[in-house]
């Protein structure tokens, strides 16, 4: 696929994303027509109720969903390059659970409270980074990533971290306010506010840019550490960068939306089927695909048992689990 084609793909994705954001904003227990949503966006007068629903609740939620989805799928891409395997995902390898555990700990003890509104994100980032380094080191056998070790250490660490989160949320429910155990375990976008959008947006944009700048290094890393080394890539430095970036992305998203699983597994895979494995194309395309996936799954989450709603992470797990098994059963893994 040549360069012109990829720009066509990206144009189409941008158009679909804008349309989806407008339509998804209208959908929910109370449905608002896309035309009304558009009117609100361009500042025309509509009823106060519709304005409140769209501007106060839905739009920040849909936008947060898009940012979270894009971040998670780029995290998946980065982690897959790091371990050279399709099966890596922040949720499966316990990174999200590590971020949740550290975030709850941070809230309980107020460890990073001097950092104000960023305290939650920073503790989640630290949790993610520690888990990622742990899983990465545990899964290396004789200098190579061993896939069985990778998945098993991911599962074990994720269980330990979830148990820790449970202990904290159950033993100190008041200190943790709105964020209960379900939030951390299965993720939700229900509490989205405009103020939640800024830092995840910046982190996402900066991280995607850094990864794009390094696209040649990421590509050659997929050939294997030694092959990348013979192509002049400083393998250790690129791996360190990948650990840092995926922890940042995972940490920031977990802090605002809890752990929404399998997005980082599904979208990079679908993206590679569409545009191949070159990171120059995979990174931007998978970011859009992840955003789209999360906003539409979140629409289902708030419609399916309205007026109650499902945590969005439960739905992504319902789709993602079978997808994971499908990938695992294929020959190439």
């Amino acid at each position, binding site marked *: 696929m040549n360069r012109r084609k990829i720009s066509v793909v990206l144009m189409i994705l941008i158009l679909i994303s804008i349309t989806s954001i407008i339509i998804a904003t209208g959908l929910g227990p109370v449905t608002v027509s896309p035309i009304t949503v558009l009117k609100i966006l361009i500042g025309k007068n509509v009823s106060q109720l519709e304005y409140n629903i769209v501007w106060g609740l839905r739009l920040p939620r849909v936008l947060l969903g898009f940012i979270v989805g894009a971040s998670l799928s780029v995290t998946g891409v980065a982690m897959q390059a790091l371990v050279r395997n399709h099966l890596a995902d922040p949720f499966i390898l316990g990174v999200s659970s590590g971020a949740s555990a550290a975030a709850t700990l941070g809230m309980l003890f107020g460890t990073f409270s001097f950092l104000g509104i960023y305290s939650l994100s920073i503790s989640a980032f630290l949790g993610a980074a520690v888990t990622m380094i742990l899983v990465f080191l545990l899964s290396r056998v004789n200098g190579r990533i061993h896939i069985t070790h990778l998945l098993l250490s991911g599962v074990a660490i994720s269980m330990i971290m979830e148990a820790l989160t449970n202990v904290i949320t159950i033993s100190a429910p008041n200190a943790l306010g709105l964020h209960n155990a379900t939030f951390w375990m299965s993720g939700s976008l229900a509490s989205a506010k405009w103020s939640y959008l800024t830092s995840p947006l910046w982190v996402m944009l900066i991280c995607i840019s850094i990864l794009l700048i390094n696209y040649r290094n990421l590509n050659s890393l997929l050939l294997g550490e*030694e092959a990348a080394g013979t192509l002049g890539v400083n393998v250790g430095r690129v791996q360190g960068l990948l650990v840092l970036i995926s922890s940042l992305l995972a940490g920031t998203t977990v802090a605002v939306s809890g752990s929404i699983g399998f997005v980082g597994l599904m979208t990079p895979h679908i993206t590679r089927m569409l545009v191949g494995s070159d990171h120059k194309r995979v990174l931007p395309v998978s970011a859009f695909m992840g955003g789209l996936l999360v906003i539409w799954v979140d629409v289902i989450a708030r419609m399916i048992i309205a007026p109650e709603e499902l945590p969005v992470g439960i739905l992504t797990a319902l789709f993602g689990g079978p997808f994971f098994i499908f990938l695992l059963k294929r020959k190439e893994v």
Partner: protein
Amino acid sequence: MRLQVNHLSFSYDNDAILKDIHMEIHQGEFIGIIGANGSGKSTLLRNLYGILTPAGGCAMLDGKNLLTMGKKEVASHVGVVSQENHIPFDFTVEEIVAMGRTPHKKLFQGDTKEDEKIIRNALKRLSLEAMSKRDYRQLSGGEKQRVLLARVVAQESDFLFLDEPTNHLDIGYQIQFFDLVKQLGGTVLAAMHDLNMAALYCDRIYAIKEGKVYTCGTPKEVLTSETIYELFRVRSFIDYNPTTKQLSIRYLPDGICNEGGESNETKAYNNVGNYSNSPVPDIRIV
């Protein structure tokens, strides 16, 4: 002189793997490294192309120390093809070859017209144009090695390290691979398992035993039945193939040659057939 290796040593967990290696490689030579499994052939190559860090010594490539060069600089001078490596992601042949441009590129710098020309040329030289859009994973072993060779061509390094690149290939692909390497020209340092291949293609051979250079020289000088016995504990009979004008090595495995005692025929081989015409201490079939 293209590459001069002096006093190179390497240890792993206090075990000396390479001891005081000396090598001299001239422009355009095809140099083979032979030796038993675990003798240090691969370790030697990996020290030279920067995957392992030697404990001491130096390796001067065109007057510059290869061992202290930055990774990018090494990669723009030397290319490496090793044993087939499984790539679990979907890349086309063209994309794999294009990765050869990596050492010449800055961060985020895209492929220029010049790069595209180099990549097309590399595909052409290895007759890969027809399969340039195919998925690398679906190629046969021999085709994969050809793609990796094209990647090295796109890398534009005229010093080539080969680390047993044909180990898993059938004889047809092995010969095709080495023929292509020969055609590409450039200087080659190759760790090889197959002694007959080494005899056919190498200008000179270094024999490595227990981490030291046991002997070196032209195939005729190195591939004698004593040296082969010293390196591999295998008895052999060496003669001259008039068609290839190279040596041809016949192995005389104990399990086969011992049966039925010493026949007159094998006696004749042992006495007359040894091309190197040197005394054969351990070759008598008992």
